[in-house]
């Protein structure tokens, strides 16, 4: 009984090790890593879905079938809920960018939900790149709208006495850069923690059953019966993770939209 638990903790280390990205060629700074590969797969799947959507829509205006309706539903969800809900009049300008972000993150998340596949968004490198795009986008939007100095000045609210405005400005600069980090880390941590949780329950299920079959005693049979509970928990966590993958894509897009809206807003 004791060595079953030891076995679990030994396999835990192996599991966590397997979630760190390893280079296929090059090194993990400059090179092609496992996570990059899965993100590439996610992008290919995404492009396939959209091109087959486009093909299925040729010569008709009303979508027919599962694919066309599904794609249309998601795109309209992003358009109405994220763009129109937050951006106001300029939503048309930013919709392509936000929809791209949404679908890239979503497909990157869902690729990892298939057994033995890995999440494309499971490393800080890729989530950082996505967050950096969103970060640069809202800064460029703000600078286009208000001018370079106008945007930098607009970070601090008007109508404050000079010393307080300076302090607020420094805090706002800091929090603007913090947005970049939190966007990247939130997505990475959600994917990483979710996969670790699923992996732990999978390991617990198999280890105890394996132990029971190898050595049939009342104690090991009790632990083996517990495996049913771990199995149920594994399925439950899997369902939650399916939800989380979508919610993370939604939150990533929603926050980008909110940041763009803040960058565009006239004096606050």
């Amino acid at each position: 009984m004791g060595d079953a638990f030891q076995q679990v903790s030994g396999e835990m280390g192996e599991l966590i090790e397997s979630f760190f990205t390893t280079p296929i060629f090059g090194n993990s700074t400059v090179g092609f890593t496992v996570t990059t590969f899965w993100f590439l797969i996610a992008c290919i799947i995404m492009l396939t879905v959209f091109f087959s959507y486009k093909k299925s829509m040729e010569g008709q205006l009303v979508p027919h079938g599962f694919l066309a309706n599904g794609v249309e539903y998601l795109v309209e969800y992003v358009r109405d809920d994220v763009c129109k809900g937050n951006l106001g009049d300029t939503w048309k300008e930013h919709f392509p960018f936000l929809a791209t972000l949404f679908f890239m993150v979503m497909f990157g998340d869902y690729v990892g939900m298939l057994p033995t596949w890995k999440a494309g968004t499971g490393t800080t490198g890729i989530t950082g790149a996505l967050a950096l795009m969103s970060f640069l986008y809202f800064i460029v939007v703000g600078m286009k709208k208000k001018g370079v100095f106008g945007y930098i000045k607009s970070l601090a609210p008007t109508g404050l006495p000079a010393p307080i405005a300076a302090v607020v400005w420094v805090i706002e600069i800091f929090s603007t850069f913090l947005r970049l980090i939190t966007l990247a880390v939130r997505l990475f941590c959600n994917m990483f923690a979710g996969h670790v949780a699923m992996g732990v329950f999978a390991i617990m299920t198999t280890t105890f059953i394996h132990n029971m079959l190898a050595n049939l005693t009342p104690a090991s049979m009790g632990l083996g019966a517990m495996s049913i509970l771990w199995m149920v928990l594994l399925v439950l966590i899997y369902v939650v993770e399916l939800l989380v993958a979508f919610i993370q894509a939604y939150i990533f897009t929603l926050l980008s939209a909110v940041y763009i809206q803040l960058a565009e807003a006239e004096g606050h």
Partner: protein
Amino acid sequence: MNVIGYGLCVIGAALGIGLASSAVANSMARQPEVQGRLFTVFILASAFIEALCLIGFVVAIM
């Protein structure tokens, strides 16, 4: 030690999500017609809270 630290971290996150969801449940009971908007706000708020907790988790096991 790591596990204790993560436990402390979960206390904060649990309080935060508990407060947020109780407030949302209250407001939904008072004004059922704003359910859609409230859901968005709730998901956003819990994402912020949850992110802190998950950062704690990742730091604890690394």
